[in-house]
């Protein structure tokens, strides 16, 4: 499927490609600029591979100065630029534009400094998330945000998406774990935002840039906070014969004032798929399991585990297991960490959704999802960050069956509408990208969208950075609105998704 952006989000230019490639090569050297279709192919999509566009040119700068040079050339010529980290994004944020430069940051992959006394690390954007923790582990430190994609995804991508992970319930999202960003602006200038202290003078640009999906500038350096590896960690695994009971247990644990380091949910489909894949010893007959971990001082952890166990039992868990030792605890998590690939083995394709809802609505929304799944005749596996109310329904489909991808997308849009209906959001951590751009017309009225565009213009007056992503044009929304058919239904299920 080829992605076509909305005409109002396209940027025309008449730059001669060969001349532009030569100009880029003069700055970056010949092998850092790719222009042949076969070299461009690996960059045509991110992890939302249903959308593909061959980029015009790919550049692989090795330094901040080279990123600046690329931006200066593109800015002068009016050429759009799409930043790309590891390309593990799930919303098409790094999807190229056909007349634009795809700017890969993977060669900026050095850890520049580790400051143990202040518990900070200065890293380039192409450093993999897990590489940070690997580098600081000998010091007894770690970088807390741990997306499931952490062995592959980059810190730059994490910042651009404000990524979360299992441990964000206690330790916060990416935005809570940064102190500084160096940004190359659309004009190619270098700005430092934030610093090595806990806060910074002026506006909180660090917060604004985090999650900005490459629309406001190119992140070329990041200072991340490190935390101490907890003195102890203990995990519980609770099985339920009813997803509603499991959902209620989540709300009760949080409501009781406990703060787990992680609180994850897996439904029957996911349990069976993971068990078949990694043999973590999960109860395959259960309708749902919860994994609940506490960390910190052993005395605190013991008391919290006991309190959580009592809540789980009271919430009608059919079985509650305490990991006897660290090996068993890691086995509990092994299944969770392998859940996505495990689901990948039971379906030809899956489509990962990412809504967040109030926790009290978990049970209702999960039931709503299974009703919708039946209606659409597709399977859905649920594995998600329950403690944060962040759902990840995985819609199972087969792209080779005509119409099934479209059917999956329609089901996905209905599920996200369900999240909006209960006061939630269409994306908790995977970003809007191209995937949810139409849904933003639903989540935000025109005045809010206009304010987003004003913010965008403050950084990027001509809209060269990642056009057609994250914030829909008002024209796009107006057209969708005009096509509105009947209440409660998304206005575009009948339409081909652009």
């Amino acid at each position, binding site marked *: 499927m080829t992605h076509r952006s909305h005409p109002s989000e396209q940027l025309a230019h008449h730059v001669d490609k060969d001349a532009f490639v030569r100009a880029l090569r003069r700055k970056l050297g010949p092998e850092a600029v790719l222009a042949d279709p076969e070299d461009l192919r690996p960059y045509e999509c991110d992890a939302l591979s249903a959308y593909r566009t061959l980029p015009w040119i790919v550049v692989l700068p090795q330094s901040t100065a080279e990123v600046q040079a690329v931006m200066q050339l593109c800015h002068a010529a009016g050429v759009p630029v799409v930043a790309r980290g590891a390309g593990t994004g799930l919303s098409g944020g790094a999807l190229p534009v056909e007349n634009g430069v795809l700017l890969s940051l993977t060669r900026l992959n050095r850890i520049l400094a580790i400051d143990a006394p*202040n*518990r900070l690390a200065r890293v380039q954007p192409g450093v993999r998330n897990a590489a940070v923790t690997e580098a600081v582990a000998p010091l*007894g*430190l770690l970088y807390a945000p741990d997306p499931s994609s952490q062995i592959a995804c980059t810190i730059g991508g994490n910042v651009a998406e404000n990524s*979360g992970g299992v441990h964000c319930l206690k330790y916060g999202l990416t*935005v*809570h774990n940064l102190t500084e960003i160096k940004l190359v*602006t659309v004009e190619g*200038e270098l*700005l430092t935002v934030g*610093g*090595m*202290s*806990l*806060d*910074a*003078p*002026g506006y*909180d*640009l660090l*917060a*604004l840039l*985090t*999650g*900005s999906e490459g*629309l406001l500038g190119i992140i070329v350096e990041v200072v991340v906070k490190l935390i*101490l590896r907890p*003195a102890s960690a203990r995990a519980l695994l609770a099985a339920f014969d009813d997803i509603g009971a499991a959902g209620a247990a989540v709300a009760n644990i*949080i409501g009781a*004032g*406990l703060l787990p380091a992680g609180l994850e949910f897996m439904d029957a489909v996911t349990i069976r798929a993971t068990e078949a894949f990694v043999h973590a010893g999960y109860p395959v007959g259960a309708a749902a399991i919860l994994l609940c971990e506490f960390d*910190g*001082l*052993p*005395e*605190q952890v013991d008391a919290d585990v006991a309190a959580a166990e009592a809540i789980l039992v009271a919430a009608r868990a059919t079985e509650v297991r305490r990991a006897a030792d660290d090996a068993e605890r890691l086995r509990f998590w092994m299944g969770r960490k392998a859940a996505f690939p495990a689901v990948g083995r039971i379906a030809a394709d899956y489509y990962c959704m990412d809504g*967040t809802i*109030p*926790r*009290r609505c978990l049970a209702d929304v999960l039931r709503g999802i299974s009703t919708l799944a039946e209606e659409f005749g597709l399977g859905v596996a649920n594995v998600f960050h329950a403690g944060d109310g*962040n759902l990840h329904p995985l819609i199972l489909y087969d792209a080779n069956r005509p119409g099934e991808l479209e059917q999956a997308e329609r089901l996905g849009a209905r599920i996200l509408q369900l999240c909006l209906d209960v*006061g939630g*959001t269409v*994306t*908790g951590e995977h*970003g*809007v990208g191209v995937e949810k751009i139409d849904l*933003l017309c639903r*989540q935000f009225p025109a*005045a*809010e*969208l206009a*304010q*987003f565009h*004003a*913010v*965008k213009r*403050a*950084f990027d007056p001509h809209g060269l950075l990642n056009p057609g992503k994250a*914030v829909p044009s008002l024209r796009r929304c107006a057209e969708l609105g005009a096509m509105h058919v009947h209440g409660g239904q998304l206005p575009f299920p009948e339409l081909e998704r652009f």
Partner: protein
Amino acid sequence: MNGTAGGIGALPDADCESALQDDVRDALARRQPLRIVGGGSKGFLARSAEGEALGVADHRGILAYEPTELVVTARGGTPLAELEEVLAEGGQMLAFEPPHFGASATIGGAIACGLSGPRRPFAGSARDFVLGVKLLNGRAETLRFGGTVMKNVAGFDVSRLMAGACGTLGVLLEVSLKVLPRPRCELSLSFEMNPLSALQAMQDWASGSWPLSGLAYDDRLRVRLSGNESAVQAARRRLGGEPAECGADYWRALREQDLPFFAGAADLWRLSVPPAVRLAPLPGEWLYDWGGAQRWLRTSAPAAEVFAAAASCGGHAMLFRTPMASAARFQPLEPRLMGLHRSLKAAFDPDGLFNPGRMYEGL
């Protein structure tokens, strides 16, 4: 949850949104700058803004509070004390422990100033707990950003951008904040120590698994432990030190700047720095909070010197209290960064209505 019997202010909840919107619309028509005034408790913090007063304290009331969701939504003029009382009844708190600086403090003002108390390095800052806002921008439009869920990356994070913007980007009509359970048990310890050993001890303890919620140094090293009884007692046994009498009062007094250190007329500076740094020597008296990451300085040193000392270690300084009304208060921004601030200001408030000059000249 309307009509909360807050007990502190006798004023009833009231929705003044449309009146405020009319005021801004009117000011816009007249190109009349506005000085946003909540409880007036933090007026001393920054330079005084020019313009007609726009009072927001009457727009008050808690709109929603769901203890199990860990979220509260309140109108900007809601008294901070009232909000905290309601949360305490639910066994919860604003974990960033905002300073009040007076009984009239409002939640809108607390977020606009973006200040956090002693718990900040362990729990997070004011901006960290912002989940959503409703604001009036400089075009007199009412806009909502963020929401009440824990994770939300739909659209730019305008909500957190409002924290610490000193009202220069818009009028905060409502804020939704994440709240946290109050610790079951809290205990304060104090230790006899010289400043250098104290900095080292703070660094060692902050990088341990201790259930810390406060780490400060005046003439003694002060430690606050929070958690369940057994964890707090275990930490106490292992850390040693003496239980401080009036422990809770100390942290309140530190937060509210009621300690003797804060009395007097000398300039009070706030230096926000990496916690372990040794700063270039500056004349005057010091008090460390946030495990060394926030340092208070009473000094007569010239502003340029203090700004330079803070910047040289990757931090920044703010002239927090001064008798000189016109003094620059915040660390100067590098020109390109200042340019971006101006563009952003124009994006929210193109006619420069809100609190002109309060943060920086020309902003």
